[in-house]
């Protein structure tokens, strides 16, 4: 059984937000309808995004690191958002494990968003339905795009290749090898949602001793 997923390398993400904008561009332009923006040119712009890059400071000065942390739906293998949906609009595809929302069935009750510990779902204020990362299902299953473009828009856009895409159930895929060999981990493992997306931890790097330079 296939489980498509992203593996995000925290070593090389530079927080440029190219994945955010390319995700927005692709997913606001498709047949599923635009991702609404609220007050886009005003004082307090807001809008629907499937992917966001957050920034954290880890450690205590002077031993601090800046970690850029891309965050989107993790396409959990046991997604808590799916069984709570009253209409069946939220579902997990059997063929590739992508968790999707059928916008035509969604009643906008927001219960799935409450049921997601990661805050991966955002209600579109224009269409009044729940939206989330589709793993660019329309790209990855496309038969018309050139084969090397059948990847999520965020993966295509990342300038540092911080985003790997593939089948985490295939032992020999690039993502499985990366998880296995580089200590890939899941977010909030305590809730046993078995996120398909995983993160590659930063490698321990030595401090530069200025005196030796």
């Amino acid at each position, binding site marked *: 059984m296939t489980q498509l997923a992203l593996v995000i390398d925290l070593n090389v993400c530079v927080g440029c937000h190219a994945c955010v904008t390319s995700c927005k561009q692709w997913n606001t332009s498709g047949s599923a309808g635009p991702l609404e923006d609220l007050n886009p040119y005003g004082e307090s712009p*807001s*809008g629907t995004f499937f992917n*966001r890059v957050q920034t954290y400071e880890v450690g*205590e000065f002077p031993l601090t690191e800046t970690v850029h*942390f891309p965050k989107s739906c993790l396409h959990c293998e046991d997604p808590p958002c799916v069984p709570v949906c009253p*209409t069946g*609009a939220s579902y997990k595809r059997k063929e590739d494990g992508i968790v999707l929302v059928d916008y035509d069935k969604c009643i*906008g009750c927001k219960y799935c968003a409450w049921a997601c510990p990661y805050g991966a779902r*955002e209600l579109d204020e224009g269409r009044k339905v729940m939206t989330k990362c589709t793993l660019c299902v329309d790209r990855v299953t496309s038969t018309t795009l050139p084969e090397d473009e059948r990847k999520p828009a965020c993966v295509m856009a990342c300038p540092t290749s911080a985003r790997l895409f593939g089948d985490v159930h295939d032992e020999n895929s690039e993502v499985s090898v990366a998880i296995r060999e580089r200590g890939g981990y899941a977010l909030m493992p*305590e809730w046993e949602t078995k996120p398909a997306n995983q993160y590659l931890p930063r490698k321990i790097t030595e401090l530069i001793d200025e005196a030796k330079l």
Partner: protein
Amino acid sequence: MKPAWSVIFLTTLCGMAQGFMLALVGADLIGGGHVTPASARIFFSGGAAICVVLTALGLFASFFHLGRPERFWRSAAMWRTSWLSREVIAVPAFLGSSSFYAWAHYSGQAYAPALGVLAAACALALWVCTAMIYACLRFIREWASAYTLVNFVLLGCASGFTLAACWAAWAAPAWVPAYLAAAYLFLIVGLLVRLLMLRRNASLKPVSTLQSAIGIKNPKIQQKSMGAMGGSFNTREFFHGKSALFIKNVRWIFLVLIFPASTMLLALAEQRVSGLLLVVALLVQYAGLLAERWFFFAQANHPQNLYYQVVS
């Protein structure tokens, strides 16, 4: 979480109707007192009609929670897995059985009490569905306990029996003392359970931390940016945006209004034999219930909030 008034009205109005139905069916089965068949007919059919109106009002309020209310009919589909879907079935079942019960008493059918038992069973089922919507979300730990269900049932019964006393004062005065006695009992047990629930929730230690949220073990992590300057659905839906003092005051308000204030007003009404004071007690208690339900939602701390600590 940000309390939604639609759901606050839904759970409090339906809860009162459910408690009232138990009160009606209890009197229907046990009987007693000196109530003429004519006034019993008005009491039961009119009371059940009040249940129907309250539930319908709650249902109406719930529509305001939906982004796409015109698609409401889809929401019964996933009853196998979703407590929300089960609630969507339980509400009309309660409405339907209560309507039949009202009609059966109005038209003097002998099987009316049997329909009452059915309506009472629907009321209990509805409580289970409503409470489980919240209690099944295991990572919202303020909700994920049996207290959620017990609290909904006890406060629903307290308000339902208080309403029953009000209605009986007008339609069947002989039953007022029994209803008031039951209301006092539910209020006292309800207060005890609510205090235990507050104590449990105050002692909860977070299971998820910023460390488990982003998977970095360092004990010192600070968010510097949440990836959006003007907020997002995540900052609007999951934060109540009120100060700790405000939350604390709401807690005092509901504790005082529901328990000592309404109980003393009920006792005063009983002493002065005043139907009007009973209604005042009910209104004061209902205001407290609105505050209680607001607090119930506001107190829930969603783990996604770990990712949304800093606006920049």
